């Protein structure tokens, strides 16, 4: 009703096309790049804060971390670039190694679960975990973060290596609720069996990958200069 009659369409010249596309492209590029530049510092800051708060949750003693990775021969090196599932060595305020923080992922009930967990060199045990990402059924699957008796598993979940230090001495497994008999067993959650099982197998898998190298190399590991504060 209130739209005016369509104006006479003038044929668009090539120049107009170029002008508009290049113009808009330039405008967009300018905007994106400036926003990226303007926010990148804060984003990096945010990320670091997020990571350190997560690490603090699983390994409170840590004051600084360094990201590490395994090279082709399986020995510990400083990470060259940000990994999808990074692992960190954690140092206390004196710069002494207190533990490692490992990100691990595995299939849960509905989708991947990503967890961050901490390993204490002193206890040779897993001492904390935090679920970073999960699509588990709320109310059931998220019990692995809330259920006290499940969290009690992480006072010291035995993750000792075997004698030659190549593998875990005892595989970490989840058992039925109330049937935990050994230190390397996870006391499961009735009603969230799959999720608690998944946590067990994720820990087991990631530990088998990281722990031999960590135990062997971490103590002698020379952190590169730039230790994140």
């Amino acid at each position, binding site marked *: 009703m209130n739209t005016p009659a369509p104006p006479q369409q003038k044929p668009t010249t090539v120049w107009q096309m170029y002008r508009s596309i290049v113009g808009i492209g330039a405008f967009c590029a300018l905007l994106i790049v400036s926003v990226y530049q303007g926010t990148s510092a804060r984003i990096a800051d945010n990320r670091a804060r997020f990571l350190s708060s997560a690490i603090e949750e699983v390994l409170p003693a840590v004051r600084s971390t360094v990201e590490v990775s395994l090279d082709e021969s399986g020995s510990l090196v400083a990470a060259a670039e940000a990994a999808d599932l990074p692992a960190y060595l954690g140092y206390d305020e004196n710069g002494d190694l207190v533990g490692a923080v490992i990100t691990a992922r595995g299939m849960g009930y*509905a989708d991947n679960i990503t967890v961050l967990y901490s390993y204490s060199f002193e206890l040779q045990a897993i001492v904390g975990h935090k679920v970073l990402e999960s699509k588990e059924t709320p109310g059931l699957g998220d019990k692995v973060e809330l259920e006290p008796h499940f969290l009690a598993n992480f006072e010291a979940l035995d993750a000792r290596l075997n004698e030659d230090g190549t593998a875990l001495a005892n595989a970490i497994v989840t058992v039925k609720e109330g049937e935990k008999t050994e230190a390397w067993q996870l006391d499961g959650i009735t009603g969230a069996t799959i999720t608690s099982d998944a946590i067990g197998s994720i820990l087991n898998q990631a530990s088998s*990958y990281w722990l031999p190298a960590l135990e062997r190399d971490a103590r002698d590991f020379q952190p590169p200069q730039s230790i994140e504060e």
Partner: protein
Amino acid sequence: MNEPGYWSIFLNAALVNNFVLAYFLGICPFFGVSAKLETAVRMSGAVTFVMLVASTCAFGINLILEAINAPYLRIISYILVISSAVQLVEMLLRKLSPPTFKALGIFLPLITTNCAIFGLALFQTNKGYGFTQAIVYALGAAAGFALALVLMAGVREKLDLADVPSIFKGTAAALVVAGILSMGFMGFAGLGR
């Protein structure tokens, strides 16, 4: 560490985390064309096709973007490249196979800038899938989309003939059916392990 197998990727995308019923992606065409079975089937074909194109494009662009270290260009380049690739394919299709174009063509403009397609591109990048994995993922997503669409169409065709209360006609009915289907799909949880 543990790379998911192809079968697991497929099942996850198709059933467990169905694009429509679990991620709400592609809801607009889902409600728009699910009223009749025939259009639903043809739409599914078109979506499968575009998803494959988009998956391939996204994989390629991501390689380039990582090479030049410009993640901030991801959104704009994905959307531009995917929509132009689909248009190119559309033109090719019109030239090479007019019958296919006739069957699928009218749906192509509808889905070039569709959240299911774009979401697929983003998710496969976020999950860090390789090329074959990305293709399997696209196939799974398309199969899931088609399944949801076709199931929906059957129920809605039946609903068309029912004495549905007037406030329930149209999208409200479609939403409820989608909700019930979504509950049904919860049964598949845990399959893609």
